[in-house]
């Protein structure tokens, strides 16, 4: 009962393509989960199955204690990846329509629309037709449509796609607002640093399979830093020459701004830092934490190697 979503051995096939394979997933109530993975990994399919827009070929789905989202539709909010509005409909009428479809009582719907339009800084657009709004405004309207009924579970498919930085921050704040209210939030993105900024828990999908399912902290701890970021004090230092012969250094990469020193397996971080600092005077020297992107690429390439060897 304390899980908002429980998926058990979910499989879904479209024609010859298997979109989701043997997926198990449990999202506790009140959690903020990010589903990441490249395009075509099965993220949208998984989210849609949670909403009973699509149905799995095999497996069990439990949403908000019900055995199908159909029974809990009014308690779920959904922002699809490809979102639309009725172009010719006035904004307020559209939002009211969506609110009523989500079980809000007709006499309350109007007040909620006014309240929400004020919250996102668009109090005066209610009478405008949806097609008159800019794309950013439309995105906000669509977000309102997803949360206007105060859902217990909010499912967002690529909520940041197509947003400029200002609106991206606004949507992020709105999502965090919902999270603080106690809403369970599950969102997908293929831009991994967005998930890194927002989520407590990451689920990574690759080719329909779950390859990672852990809290961000655990993931960071498991994928301990194995590289240093170093900027020498003097720009003309011969870094490669100075570091040659150090047993802890595996390879050296040069980027535009800094050197990336990849460490050998088993090298101790404290010794490595001291050794590097002893050879070159740095203006900056720090541990390079692996980004989710690095972890993802690591997992995928490992998977590919394993497949190649078996």
């Amino acid at each position: 009962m304390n899980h908002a979503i429980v998926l058990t051995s979910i499989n879904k096939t479209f024609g010859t393509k298997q979109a989701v394979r043997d997926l198990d997933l449990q999202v506790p109530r009140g959690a903020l989960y990010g589903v990441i993975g490249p395009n075509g990994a099965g993220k949208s399919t998984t989210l849609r199955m949670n909403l009973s827009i699509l149905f799995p070929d095999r497996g069990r789905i439990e949403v908000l204690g019900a055995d199908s989202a159909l029974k809990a539709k009014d308690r779920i909010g959904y922002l699809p990846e490809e979102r639309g509005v009725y172009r010719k409909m006035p904004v307020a009428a559209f939002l009211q329509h969506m609110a009523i479809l989500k079980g809000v009582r007709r006499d309350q719907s109007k007040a909620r629309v006014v309240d929400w339009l004020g919250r996102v800084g668009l109090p005066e657009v209610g009478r405008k037709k949806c097609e008159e709004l800019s794309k950013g405004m439309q995105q906000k309207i669509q977000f309102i449509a997803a949360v206007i009924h105060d859902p217990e579970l909010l499912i967002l498919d690529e909520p940041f796609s197509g947003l400029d930085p200002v609106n991206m921050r606004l949507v992020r704040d709105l999502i965090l607002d919902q999270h603080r209210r106690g809403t369970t939030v599950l969102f997908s993105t293929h831009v991994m640093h967005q998930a890194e900024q927002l989520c407590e828990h990451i689920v990574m999908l690759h080719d329909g399979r779950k390859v990672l399912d852990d809290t961000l902290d655990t993931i960071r701890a498991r994928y301990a830093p194995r590289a240093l970021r170093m900027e020498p004090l003097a720009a003309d230092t011969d870094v490669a020459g100075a570091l040659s012969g150090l047993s802890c250094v595996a390879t050296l990469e040069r980027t535009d701004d800094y050197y990336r020193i990849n460490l050998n397996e088993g090298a101790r971080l404290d010794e490595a830092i001291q050794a590097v600092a002893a050879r070159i005077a740095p203006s900056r020297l720090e541990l390079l934490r692996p980004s989710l992107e690095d972890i993802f690429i690591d997992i995928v390439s490992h998977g590919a190697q394993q497949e190649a060897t078996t």
Partner: protein
Amino acid sequence: MSKILQIAWREFAATVLTKGFLIGLLLMPFMIGMAVVLMPMLINVKSPAIHGGIAVLDRSGEVVARLREQLDPKVFAQRRRAIDEKINAAMPAAARALTSKASADARVEQSLSQVLGQVPEIEVSLIEADAGLNAAKSRLLLAKSDQAALLAVLVVHSDAVQQPEHGKELGTYDLFVSEKLDDRLISDLREAMKTAIVDARLAVRQLDAGEIRALTRLAYVRPQMVTKDGAQSKNEIANKLLPMAFMMLILISVMTAGQQLMTSTIEEKSSRVVEVLLAAVSPTELMAGKILGQMGVGLLMLLVYGGLVVISLLSFSLLGMIDPWLLMYLLIFFVIAFTTLSALMAAIGAAVNELREAQALLTPVILVAVLPSILWMPISNDPDSIFATVLSLVPPISPFVMMLRMASSTPPPMWQVWLSIAIGIAGMLAAIWVAGKVFRIGLLMHGKPPNLMTLIRWVRMS
């Protein structure tokens, strides 16, 4: 249920509360009204009177003087009035009453003077010998403004009046006319020649032309239908038109609302609103709501146009022709026809990505819907034929055909009506079932537009 009603309401409001729809809805009654008001005015506009000459070569020698009499303006006018009266007699009683309500006598006077004002003034010249014929014919080619120009050249055969020998048929005449001659003048000439020649023939046999005309005249007879309520004047035109009107009522409202349903489904799909909707309601609820909403649109049209039919019948005092029960059946058959066809339209709308792709799939549906209006004639000529009976039981055209039969003067037995309703409802449920499947799968499918085979595969999928 409240969600279905909310979807229905949005669908209805989004369709009806647009300028285009309101204009379209009111345009037809407006145009019919304009036609009723303007047509008589247009018909009464005088066409320019014709002046000109004709040349006659009278080989019989008996005709030309009588032709001159017949082409006298006064005789001309009388002849045209006689034609008017004939048309009048064939008109339904109520319509006749309407046109000549004001003051019958005054109208007759008026129309006579009107007709007199525009009768052609024709000078008849004689061609003395065969030699002059070609010269006369060449005068047909002259420009109208030319004094010597002729409108027509008549050649009466020598045997047109008197039989050359016993047992041989009587001759006739030739008519040569200039290009672009008014058709009415040609028929006037024909009429005049007929009278002139027949009169000449009668005169040769010492018979009184006036008496014979009087003896051969018979007034136009209108059939009187004998019913349980007593003899009733039967009105053929109204009897044919009323069933057609009923069928067209259903057809227009079904097709308009059905098209709207398809368009709005395509719009929801292509603008991707549909995924948001599906997170709130099931596809079945969505389809039900949309069909219900557009049914409201269709009913509105039915009300407006049906009301118009009732009002116009009222003004012709023919309302007695409609059985109030017929209106109830109209409603039942509308619901059946609408739900069946609109479910299919919704499915088509959900299957395609844009309106253009819908055309190919739509053709069979439209064909089915238009079929009854093509078959209107054979069915209304014989509403009890096996052909009509079978068609009135086969969905999806059964509602249209049954409506035709029921509004006709020989309505089908009640068991056929209820059988048709039962089969219609079964067909309707089947259509909803099939459409529901296509609808559910199609809504989230993007990309290549499906063909008929794909649709069938979707239906067979669980």
